[in-house]
């Protein structure tokens, strides 16, 4: 079984694409179709953006470690950062009103987390002394 592939990028918005391209290469190797690869790319983007926005708070405050592996019929992405603990339970869910006129009812906080959970089969956050650890899983086939 192949060992995980690793990449570390600075926590900057203009470097997120590099992390996503790295993950896309893995998703293609895992045999996902282009639509699924796009969804995985978007989940990776949202996860990296989330780290910069919430764990680090600003750009250039730390690094993002990205790894992927294909294991037991699943594509597994892991992201690590050394920022503040991220607590997904504190993030509000986005809500879309039934009628477009209800402008004030439209809540767009938590969109990134919503995307990650919608696009991937499993999303798990944990935190220890070294920082945040996010595992996202997409089942193959």
């Amino acid at each position: 079984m192949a060992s995980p592939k690793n990449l570390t990028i600075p926590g900057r918005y203009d470097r997120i694409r590099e992390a996503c391209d790295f993950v896309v290469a893995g998703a293609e190797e895992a045999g996902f179709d282009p639509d699924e690869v796009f969804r995985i790319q978007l989940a990776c983007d949202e996860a990296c953006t989330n780290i910069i926005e919430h764990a680090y708070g600003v750009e250039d405050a730390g690094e993002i470690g990205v790894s992927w592996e294909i294991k037991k019929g699943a594509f597994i992405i892991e992201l690590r950062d050394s920022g503040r603990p991220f607590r997904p339970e504190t993030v509000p869910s986005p809500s879309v009103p039934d009628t477009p006129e209800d402008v004030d009812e439209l809540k767009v906080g938590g969109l990134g987390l919503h995307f990650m959970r919608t696009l991937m089969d499993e999303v798990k956050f944990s935190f220890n002394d070294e920082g945040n650890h996010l595992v996202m899983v997409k089942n193959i086939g």
Partner: protein
Amino acid sequence: MNIWQETISDGIQLVGVNGRLDQTLTPTLEAALLNLLDQGYHQLIVNLQGVNYINSGGLRCLVTVWRQAHQKGGDLKLCGLNERVSKVFSMVGFDKVFQIYEDCDAARRAVID
């Protein structure tokens, strides 16, 4: 140029975007659109024909401007979304929030009428 603008008539502006609508481009687009609202262009059309990727930050930007346009009695309409970008909108129900035109000429006609 990633963002371009075209005045359609009084108070109506079309803004085109090219590239990836993520955090590298979104702040520039949001500033340009909010600036147009401040200048009195309350009817905005955003042409996304040249956008091949959008993330939640891109959606948030468009919603922020859409909300402010509505508060001023205007609107922000979208046109030219490719299939993938359309799917991202529908994933969170934003296809029901925005008026979205497949054809940008139709969007122009809608705001002029």
